[in-house]
């Protein structure tokens, strides 16, 4: 078996005149967490729906777990699990009944299924709640059940469409932890969509940044961030109340410093290279009598990466009004509503 869990070639989905996913080609390796990052309407969900056989591609092809999503959709379905943005659960049934129904749709024999359900419930510390109705649960509890529901067939590949959307910070952290545990313990390949840069950064081994139906960048989070700073330079911002020109020039004269920008009367931004560059900087400043009040490490975030690549910020509807920073001009009509 190859090392590839998913591969797509020119995968495209059109709804009428609107192209939701536009000739997307990428590969996902086995046991990696692959993130599709982008604003709402970028085509992430549509891409996941095509990969999970819920939507038929208009053009192009995709192989999931070694099977073609169109020609061998039945085989694909046996190997995948889906955690959708909308929870796939029946509120009036108990957690166990929900898991049982979906287990039965995978033809899992009773004894195996019952054991597996117990194991999954224990895995998310919900064993005490097994026979309680879903509608008595908090959102966080529901989402835990929703995630293990997708694991009932022990999928090789798990698709997670905005798994933390609408959750409180604590539940969000819990679900992220859960995703990581599933990935490590079961070596499950994960494809995760999110519009939260921090989430992608935290969880994913590799990230494909999507915008307007295209993958505009694809790499590890570290490489993506490095790509905009150009080298391994680090950016610091100092607040110095007694800032003067002599202090600025003393910093500029340092070898490790590549650029210094004086923002206002008390702030400077310094870009420097080297592992001990921070120490050197501070030493130079102190020697010149600078009183350092605060210092910030301005490491580039995925937010900056996205802004740098697409020319607009990751925000709902941001794409409707093209910003002035756009490099390639306005891109024309976009639906204001999500198209799935």
């Amino acid at each position, binding site marked *: 078996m190859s090392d590839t869990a998913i591969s797509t070639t020119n995968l495209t989905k059109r709804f009428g005149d609107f192209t939701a996913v536009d000739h997307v080609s990428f590969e996902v390796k086995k046991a990696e967490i692959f993130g599709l990052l982008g604003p709402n309407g970028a085509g992430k969900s549509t891409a996941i729906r095509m990969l999970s056989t819920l939507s038929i591609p208009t053009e192009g092809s995709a192989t999931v777990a070694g099977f073609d999503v169109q020609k061998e959709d039945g085989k694909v379905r046996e190997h995948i699990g*889906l955690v*959708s943005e*909308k*929870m796939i*659960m029946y509120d*009036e*049934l108990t957690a166990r009944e929900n898991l049982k129904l979906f287990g039965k*749709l995978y*033809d899992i024999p009773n004894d195996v299924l019952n054991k597996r359900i117990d194991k999954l419930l224990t895995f998310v510390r919900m064993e005490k709640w097994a026979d309680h109705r879903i509608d008595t649960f908090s959102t966080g509890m529901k989402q835990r059940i929703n995630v293990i529901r997708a694991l009932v067939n022990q999928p090789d590949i798990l698709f997670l469409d905005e798994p933390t959307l609408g959750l409180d910070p604590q539940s969000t952290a819990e679900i992220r932890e859960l995703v990581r545990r599933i990935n490590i313990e079961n070596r499950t390949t994960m494809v995760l969509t999110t519009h939260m840069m921090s989430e992608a950064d935290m969880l994913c081994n590799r990230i494909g940044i999507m915008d307007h139906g295209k993958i505009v960048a694809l790499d590890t989070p570290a490489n993506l961030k490095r790509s905009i700073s150009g080298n391994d330079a680090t950016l610091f911002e100092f607040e110095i109340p007694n800032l003067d020109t002599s202090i600025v020039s003393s910093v500029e004269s340092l070898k490790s410093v590549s650029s210094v920008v004086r923002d206002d009367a008390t702030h400077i931004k310094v870009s420097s290279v080297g592992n001990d560059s921070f120490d050197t900087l501070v030493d130079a400043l102190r020697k010149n009598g600078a009183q350092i009040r605060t210092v910030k490490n301005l490491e580039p975030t995925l937010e900056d990466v996205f802004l740098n690549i697409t020319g607009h910020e990751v925000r709902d509807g941001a794409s409707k009004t093209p910003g002035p920073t756009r490099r390639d001009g306005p891109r024309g009509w976009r639906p204001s509503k999500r198209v799935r």
Partner: protein
Amino acid sequence: MGVRRVLRHSAWICWKDLLEFSRSKLRLVMLLLMPLFMMMMVGFIFPTGNTISHTPVAIANQDVMVNGASLGNGLVAELEAVNNQTGIMDLRVATGFDDIKTMIQGGKVSGGIIVPPTFTSDLLAGKQGNITIMTDQSNPQTSAMIQTVVTKLIEQLGSQAAERNLNQTYNISLQDAPTVLMPYNVQVRGIVPGTPNYFEFVAPGIMSMVVMMSLMTGLPHAISYEKDMGTLDGMLVAPTSRWAIILGKVLAQSTRGMIQGFIILLMAVLLFGVVIHGSILLVILLILLTVFSFVGLGILITSFADKEETATMVMMTLMFPMMFLSGVFFPIQQMPSYMQTLANFLPLTYAASAMRKVMVLGAGVSAITPEVVILGVFGIVLLTVAVPMFKRAMSR
């Protein structure tokens, strides 16, 4: 994908749907109340035959006495005596046409009887004694009934008078008098014992209708609701045939429809005095056939309607004409001919008619063969159209 696998999956989906349904106490109560209300509504708001009772009717006796005697007074007294026994009318005294007119306009009475001033003199002169019946034209049904009832009553009193005359004038015995007067006698006999009851007419129709409704509303609702909620994706992403999903839903909805159908049957028998003359097995088979003939329609609506709301609107539009044109509540024979033609295109017409023949008239399979064939054909045609539509709708 094996047939057994599809059946197994559909059984689980059906189990899920029924379990979900049974979890709501309100829904279970409604399952019982809906047929009960339906039966009461149709059973009690529609006129049942020509039996009116205690209908207020004004009577104006304007008869003028001749030689100190009034035949009009005698007639009114006899009328009152008969009415006291039957309780059909509540007789009120009035003075004449204008008085009764005011009373009808004021809603105090539903009709009137006028014995004119010349009543006695006409009779004595060898002419017919005229009696006028006044009706309330704003209420045609009650008017028609008062007209029928009062005419019949007066005719009856007239023949009694004639019999007395025959006895006195021609010396014919009172026993023979009716034969001389009315040589023909009519008797009514139904093909099954018992007097006809409106519930017997309406219960089979309602049973068919409830089965239809459970498929036409239940099926699109069940599927488009899950589509809206996103739970349908969970089933679609599993290695389950689309047919298992639709079959599971059909099974669950039919079960619900059949339970309701049987509740109606039980209520009809226990509460409304309906007697079932046909075979219960045939009734059950007919319910299954009705399910089959409407499944396609349910699937078709499901495929068309992308959202639950749309589905509800589409099925409401289709269901109401079906309910009222299919002879469930009113006999088709009473409709104008063009409406009868329309009714012939509705499957519910045949389902209700077959059910009625079996339940009320005790008909066997041979008597309902046309209905069975039409329902079968209807089901097959609709499924042939619906199946590809559904498949397309499921894989957008």
